[in-house]
């Protein structure tokens, strides 16, 4: 027999693929919730008998059943292995999510973070027993200071947004120390959502600065809004359009002239690391996402780390704990006292994100000063290569100048095709690529923001370009239905987000007993 074309007779097996009795699709296997597989008596651990004692629980012993499912280890391994296979990841393909810097995560760093000397030390051990850990933090701080040209760095923030919060707290503390209670923070329209959210969390009114047709901060408009009650401006540079704020020095000067601080969102530091020191741009304070520029894994949403570099003027307000050089080695200042007396206080329970610090320092040592510079250059080169090769079939958002580490397109090229940015993104999924960031930044209509990072090869960029070009042509050829039906080849097709939000189901609940059901 000739199997070659028999599949033509059974179209049904795609999508819902009723073609299989199990609903499985060969290697893509349907997987229930653990709650639907559990048996109360079963467990995936073996524990010794506890010593016989009379309990000291003071009458608070738990009476109700926990209701957790019981699974054996083989079931747990299979469950999470199968779930993982329903994810796209850097390890599986190009992940050009703009503003997210999805670069390769070296495995060496995972190995080193697990050394018992780092992974198995307690935050409240005597400081004398964790000198190596404090030295590591101090060394990482040195790299960050050198790369940014800033004199100080606060190490404890757990992520970028946490770093923004840290930064604005120091700014507010600095103003108040001068008895100068300012009320407003200026934020460009194109800013990431965490910027206004953070300003508000620090009790500031947020005012937005318009963008120029060139996708930069409108300096004139900024100057117009500046005034004695502006505490700070929050500017992302390179900005979320993937462009360098070429007037950044004037922007900084304008802010300083009005006694405002320049908070720089450093999420896009990857574009300039080793090439440009934010200190030379007039930045007063900036967070760095170690989980972006310095490759600590995103882990499906976290954890991250967001150290904040500071000018000497803001340094005294840095959050506790501080790592300082003392008479007998490194010391940890844990409360606002001594040199830290002006500190804004504690941002989280313990020291910084040590696990991320080890990874980030390993990344830095591996690249060295020379390699980090190359990182920025290759990241910018890759983005500009995409921009250049897609210019004619897609629509660059801003003119024909170069971009930095990410290329921004709008949806003009889809005009009249009936294909939306979302449809276009979903079609890309079937082609084996993660979509770009879509509908961000807000200043661009139907935005598609693509950040390849330096760890993509030319071969992989060429494949991506080829796929985008063929899709763009397909869209223009009027195949809207094809796009609207995408993705077809994924573990799940488009999901109904409206239904999810209308009647939220946020947890599993035991099925109602049969008779109760009607």
């Amino acid at each position, binding site marked *: 027999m000739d199997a070659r074309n028999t599949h033509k007779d059974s179209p049904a097996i795609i999508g819902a693929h009723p073609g299989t009795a199990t609903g499985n699709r060969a290697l893509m296997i349907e997987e229930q919730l653990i709650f639907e597989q559990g048996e109360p008596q079963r467990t995936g651990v073996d524990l010794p008998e506890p010593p016989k004692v009379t309990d000291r629980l003071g009458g608070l012993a738990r009476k109700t059943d926990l209701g957790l499912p019981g699974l054996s280890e083989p079931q747990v391994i299979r469950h999470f292995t199968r779930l993982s296979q329903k994810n796209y990841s850097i*390890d599986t393909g190009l992940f050009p999510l703009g503003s997210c810097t999805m670069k390769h995560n070296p495995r060496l760093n995972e190995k080193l973070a697990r050394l018992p000397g780092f992974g198995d030390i307690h935050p409240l051990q005597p400081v004398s027993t964790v000198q190596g850990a404090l030295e590591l933090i101090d060394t990482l701080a040195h*790299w960050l200071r050198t790369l940014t040209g800033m004199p100080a760095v606060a190490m404890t923030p757990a992520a970028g947004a946490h770093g923004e919060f840290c930064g604005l707290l120091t700014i507010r503390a600095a103003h108040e120390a001068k008895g100068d209670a300012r009320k407003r923070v200026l934020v460009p329209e194109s800013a990431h959502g965490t910027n206004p959210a953070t300003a508000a969390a620090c009790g500031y009114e947020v005012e937005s600065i318009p963008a120029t047709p060139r996708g930069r901060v409108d300096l004139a408009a900024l100057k117009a809004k500046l005034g004695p009650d502006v505490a700070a401006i929050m500017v992302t540079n390179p900005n979320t359009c993937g462009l*360098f704020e070429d007037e950044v020095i004037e922007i900084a000067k304008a802010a300083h002239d009005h006694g405002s601080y320049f908070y720089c969102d450093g999420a896009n530091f990857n574009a300039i690391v080793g090439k440009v020191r934010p200190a030379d741009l007039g930045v007063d304070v900036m967070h760095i996402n170690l989980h972006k520029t310095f490759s600590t894994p995103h882990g*499906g949403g976290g954890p991250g780390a967001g150290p904040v570099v500071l000018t000497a003027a803001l340094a005294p307000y840095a959050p506790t704990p501080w790592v300082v050089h003392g008479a007998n080695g490194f010391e940890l200042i844990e409360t606002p006292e001594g040199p830290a007396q002006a500190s804004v206080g*504690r941002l989280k329970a*313990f020291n910084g994100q040590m696990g991320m610090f080890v990874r980030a320092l390993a990344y830095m040592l591996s690249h060295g*000063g020379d390699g980090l510079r190359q990182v920025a250059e290759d990241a910018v080169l890759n983005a500009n290569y995409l921009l250049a090769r897609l210019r004619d079939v897609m629509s660059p958002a801003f003119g024909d100048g170069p971009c930095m580490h990410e290329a921004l397109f709008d949806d003009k090229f889809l005009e009249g095709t009936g294909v939306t940015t979302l449809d276009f993104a979903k079609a890309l999924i079937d082609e084996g690529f993660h979509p770009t960031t879509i509908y961000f930044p807000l200043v661009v209509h139907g935005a598609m923001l693509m950040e390849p990072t330096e760890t993509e090869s030319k071969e992989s960029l060429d494949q991506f370009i080829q796929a985008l070009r063929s899709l763009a042509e397909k869209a223009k050829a009027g195949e809207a239905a094809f796009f609207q039906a995408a993705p077809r080849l994924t573990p799940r097709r488009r999901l109904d987000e409206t239904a999810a939000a209308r009647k939220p189901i946020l947890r599993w609940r035991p099925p109602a007993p049969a008779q109760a059901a009607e």
Partner: protein
Amino acid sequence: MRYLPLTSDDRRAMLGAIGVKSIEDLFVDVPTSARQAKPLDLPPHAGELEVERELAALAAKNLAAGQAKASFVGAGAYRHHVPAAVDHLIQRGEFLTAYTPYQPEISQGTLQMLFEFQSQVALVTGMEVANASMYDGATSAAEAVLMARRTVKREKVVISAAVHPHYRETIETFARYSDGEIAVNAPDPTQDENLEALIDDQTACLVVQNPDVFGRLRDLTPLARACQAKGALLIAVVTEVVSLGAITPPGEMGADIVVAEGQSIGNGLNFGGPYVGLFATREKYIRQMPGRLAGQTVDADGKRGFVLTLSTREQHIRREKATSNICTNAGLCALAFTIHMSLLGSEGLRQLARLNHAKAVQLAEKLAVVPGAKVLNQSFFNEFTLRLPKPAAPVVEKLAADGILAGVPASRLYPGVNALANDLLIAVTETATEAQMDALVAALKGAV
């Protein structure tokens, strides 16, 4: 360089395709004054072997808890045995190197896991709903206070003196620039704290910890009633989530919000981070919750699937009106929590909690022989406060020099509170052997 795929040929060809001569032409927008002509003053790139040597040397300067003769350090971070399957699974590239699941069709792995995580957190805390994680327990607590203020539209916050001081400080930092007093009693591990008195009709919420920082257990029901009477919310903090395998969960005692440090399940000590903050509350408050939420829905073929939902609460949609500024959370630590919890199940978590408690009781009894030392707790789970006849800090230092990590001197958490200078917080988990307990007892006898 091993992480950089572009060859010099590639670079030349790509610059050509772009139509520029040199890489510098792509940095034209950078003011020349700000461009670094040459590499910064940092060491050059290094191979794996060299980097490993350098960092291993730093690691070797620390006393790992597992390499110490014994370790009883707790106070908010606990050393438990994490099954090998957990670390194996969280390192799968599809989990480790994925981003926040913004494209649900190719993120069902992360999304279903988060849904399972939320369900587990709700079950162990005894609450109705939970979010997809916060940075850690302390930031969860701080966000809970802000949420309570939004929800009941009041400012005053009452914090129990036996809430972990680092948690209280974090709350104070987060609340720093919103007005409204924060009321706190003086800490006293020998007395039951009177909190009802501090709750008035200006009060947004009461924050209590159970087991508290001194290890004591408390029935929260009366406090819940008191809060209800004044229209305030009860926020319960749990720093040792393993305790929920043995203790009545805050949800059953009437808490409105339960925040916890999830590190004990699936995650190592890591010198304090990354950890995973748990955040659970009642269904009626979900639209006030901070953080991401995974929810169930159906796909175009009618099949069950999962998505991030209710994002109108979040910064990327709501911007300055968001319920929180959080974006990146503790995803991978939540995964580790979920995998470990899946291995445990009800039976395993119950057994683990029983084992922890029994060993703690065993050590508490053994300590009776230490002259002049006294366990202050009536009740406790796996941690208790030992009052020594002399200041605890130097004793801890002395034992550390001999490779024994005795615990946390209360003075480290309450600097300057003289009444607590002699108190030592001692935590006991399943990882402590009887031999290690005896070593501690002997060492303390020698030191006091």
